[in-house]
């Protein structure tokens, strides 16, 4: 224990430590019976993906039950994708809903809402949706070494530099140093394992379809289990955390059922997605990125690239 002030010695430091310690301070205002839920510390990424999944499932339930009027999914994150009915015959039924959703989605993008001056904005304001989009302006270049405005870019390393003297410096840098400089403006090379990259939904469907015939039976069993579990839990009205787990199981079920037969899946709401997956494979013309649930930033980037291509 390193005391900060040179004036304090071992003894006074110990006394200070004792006075500051909050562990032994009585906390009568705490509920002694309270136990924190397990694994409550979640990263932002986890929280967001779970929120998104929950939203998705709400939309799906509403759509399939027929009990409620279709509600505009305005989260703008994939509501349109979820509403696509793979069966062309039933497609017309979804039309009204599609329109609703499209309007709502456009509303979020343009900021126009039916009642703009109220705060009843519904689920449109989410953590992900208020994130600022990328710039449409060309970024200015600044010297990576000094920060001065830069005219030149080293063709070998990709570093911007100010003048000939800085070029000499750039040439003398080791690869690690170059990467360090590039990392400061997020332009460094990131090596990723293929495993870590989650394949997009469509690919996942294909994989399940093509290979893993051996796994089919196993997955089917899992699907059955999942269905049972789901029914039981619905009856119990379990907590959200459990719902999340269940959603994951349901996903596995989707894959399995899709691999097995699309028909079995018809009755349960959570297999809707697998139907659509099948549909997408049947109609290769359908946009793939309808299913891409990339984070906002990435989506906008691809959108930017698309726009560029068109122009």
């Amino acid at each position, binding site marked *: *224990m*390193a*005391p*900060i002030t040179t004036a304090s010695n071992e003894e006074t*430091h110990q006394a200070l430590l004792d*006075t*500051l*310690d*909050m*562990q032994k*301070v009585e*906390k*009568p*205002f*705490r*509920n002694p019976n*309270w136990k924190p839920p397990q694994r*409550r*510390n*979640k*990263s*932002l990424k986890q*929280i967001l993906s779970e*929120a998104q999944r929950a939203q998705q499932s709400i939309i799906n339930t509403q759509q399939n039950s027929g009990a409620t009027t279709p509600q505009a999914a305005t989260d703008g994150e994939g509501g349109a994708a979820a509403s696509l009915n793979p069966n062309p015959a039933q497609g017309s039924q979804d039309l009204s809903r599609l329109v609703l959703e499209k309007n709502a989605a456009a509303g*979020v993008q*343009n*900021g126009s809402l039916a009642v*703009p*001056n109220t*705060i*009843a904005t*519904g689920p*449109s*304001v*989410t*953590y992900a*949706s*208020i*994130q*600022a*989009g*990328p*710039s*449409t302006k060309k*970024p*200015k270049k*600044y010297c990576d*070494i*000094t*920060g*001065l*405005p830069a005219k030149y870019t080293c063709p070998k390393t990709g570093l911007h530099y100010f003048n000939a003297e*800085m070029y000499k*410096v750039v040439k003398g840098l080791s690869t690690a*140093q170059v990467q*360090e*400089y590039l*990392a*400061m403006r*997020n332009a460094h090379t990131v090596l990723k394992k293929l495993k870590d990259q989650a394949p997009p939904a469509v690919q996942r469907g294909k994989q399940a379809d093509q290979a893993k015939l051996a796994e089919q039976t196993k997955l089917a069993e899992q699907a059955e289990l999942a269905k049972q579990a789901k029914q039981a839990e619905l009856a119990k009205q379990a907590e959200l955390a459990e719902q999340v787990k269940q959603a994951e199981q349901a996903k596995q079920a989707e894959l399995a059922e899709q691999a097995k037969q699309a028909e079995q899946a018809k009755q349960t709401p959570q297999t809707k997605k697998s139907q659509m997956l099948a549909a997408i494979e049947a109609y290769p013309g359908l946009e793939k990125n309808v299913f891409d649930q990339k984070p906002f930033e990435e989506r906008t980037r691809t959108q930017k690239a698309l726009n560029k291509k068109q122009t």
Partner: protein
Amino acid sequence: MPHFILPILPDSSRKPPKTPPTTTYHLSDPPFHGQLPTDTTTFRHSSPSTAIVIDNGSSSVRAGWHTDALPRLQFPPLMARYTDRKLNRKLTFIGSEIYFDGTARGQARNIYEAGSNIVNNWDVQEGVLDYVFAKLGVDGHGGGVDRPVVMTEPLATPGYTRKTMSEILFELYHVPSAAFGVDSLFSYDYNKGGGIGGRGQTGLVVSSAHMSTHLIPVVDSKPLLAHATRLDWGRAQCVEYLTRLLKSKYPGLLTSGKVTDTQIEDLVRGHCYVSQDYSGEMIKMLEWTGLEDRDHLVQLPYQEKEVVQKTAEELKIAEERKREGGRRLQEQAARMRLEKLIQKEQELEFFKELQVNVQNAPTKKAAKELLDEEEFRDEVQLDRRIKEMEKSEEAAEPPTYPLLDIPDEDLDEDGIRAKRAQRLLKSNHDARARAKAEKESEKARQAELQRRDDAYRDRDPESWVSDRRAARLATLQRIKDRDRFKADLGNRKSQASQQRMKNIANLASDNPLGRKRRRGQNPDDDGFGADDADWAVYREIQVGRNAEDGEEDDEEEDLAAQLKAVEAQLLKFDPEFTEQSTQEAQRDWTKSLQHAALRGPYPYDADSARESAQIHLNVERIRVPEVLFQPSIAGVDQAGIVELIETLLQSPSLAAQGDLTRDIFLTGGYTLFPGFGERLGTELRAVLPVEAAVRVRRAGDPVLDAWRGAARWAEEGGRGFVTRAEWAEKGGEYLWEHNLGDAFS
């Protein structure tokens, strides 16, 4: 088109170094402010409706009663909880109290996940709330915390976070009711500027805080959350960015853990400012004139190397001791020599006596026994031994080589051996003499050359000068070529590299296919080595010898020396060649941009511990806060704040656009950077239509007004509290929406 204008190149004259800086900055101590007081009186006198207001910020938590004028508790949202091995008990420290102890500092955890404004570590959050309630003197007699709680939260808090927070408040602390609101809206409400025509106020809230920057348009006191935007950049990111900048600027200086995040944060707070014209100011930042004012020198702690200076007396004593030691050694050697001599003499005497004894022995057998005792075979051997010993006692004569002239046939075996030794000695001697002579002649040759050169110079000074200049240029060219060659070796595809590989392959192969191999000669001998240049091959294939290794290439040294000699001559005899034109002057550090960035306008001595523990902040001072205006600088793929406001104001559905720019309200710690408001105003003026009125104002206290606003909101009996019953019935994410709060999502 480049977005900047380069100044005219500075003149090549050597600049005078500046005097050492008058103000040196130092790193701050850990911000330990002592123990925060516990005050129970306010709690005892408070009514059950007195609310506890907590601004749950990421840079610091501010808490107090809503009746207070200022939050009575302010501390960083940190907790250190660990088990002390020595005391064998758990210790918990909260807030700035962790800074008093090194271990506690190391164990500190933040409420927030690094880089986001969402509460992530609930154990720490609990600790922080415990701390708040304990310090506010809540005694728990009414069952838990029997006061309503008002808390701030970031805009668009995920449902999970609010749910967990409500759960903690209602379940763990048993609060009767709780309300959540957005900090920047509280701050805006507190700084009411008065609405237009009796309605609420309208304006654009720019909240640039510790973890993120939010833009929230407010019309008639109602926030239009659908239009709100978040830019993921705040002062915490600035701290991280500056750390990375300094780490690559001064490698190894920050890695030793000498500098903590709080210290870097103080650097950001104390030295950075928002530039009014970034590109223009940046380009002038490292210019020589006025650099001493722009350059801020920060001295890190260092340890001066101890140089022991000996006095003359001490030196004398050391010398004396050394001499004494030498003398003693000599004496010892002499004594040993003497002892040996005496021993030898005694031995000789003994052997002589033995010889006499043997000769006088009565029988042959007795003589043999005597000899055997001393391990001699016969008398002859004894005789030879005695002769040898007698000979060695004679003094050594000066080296002559008498045997060399006698032919081998006339010598016996020993003679031949001695002759060989003598020949060796003689050739050594001769070689030394030859070398001496050669040296002399070389000296003479040099003198002759010098004389001739002088004569040439006297005869025709102009052509002499031009010759010298050509020689200087040639040397420079050679240096350049070698540097290029070295650089080329780094590239595998370069010709230099390929030639090198060829050479290696050639040298390693069993039957080398050298160019010099001629027919008719010994097939094993390809003539390699006959030419001195052949050996350069080994120099060429040797790479990986860096200039930093300290030992320079021999040739490198040679070239540099040559250059220096030529330049010295030119300096002496060429009137046009001045001190400024020497290579050294042109490479002078005062002209180096890198030196200006790294060391400011001061000379640098790498051996000085003090100077190598210095940080110079110059470009960083404006580079770091600029990221909010140009996030691409730090690789953030989001639009800058001005572009975001521009886009926001242009959205057709947004009501009262004109009124929004009339009141651009700045709050949050980032807006404390000098020049922030002015810069934002100027840039907005440039991009907005002419008729738009732009007025930028800053909160009275950009840091604390959020808390004050929340306190006032609580005082006014803000409708927005969720009661325990409602929470129990409607679920953890339930929220009464109000004008200063978030929307339910």
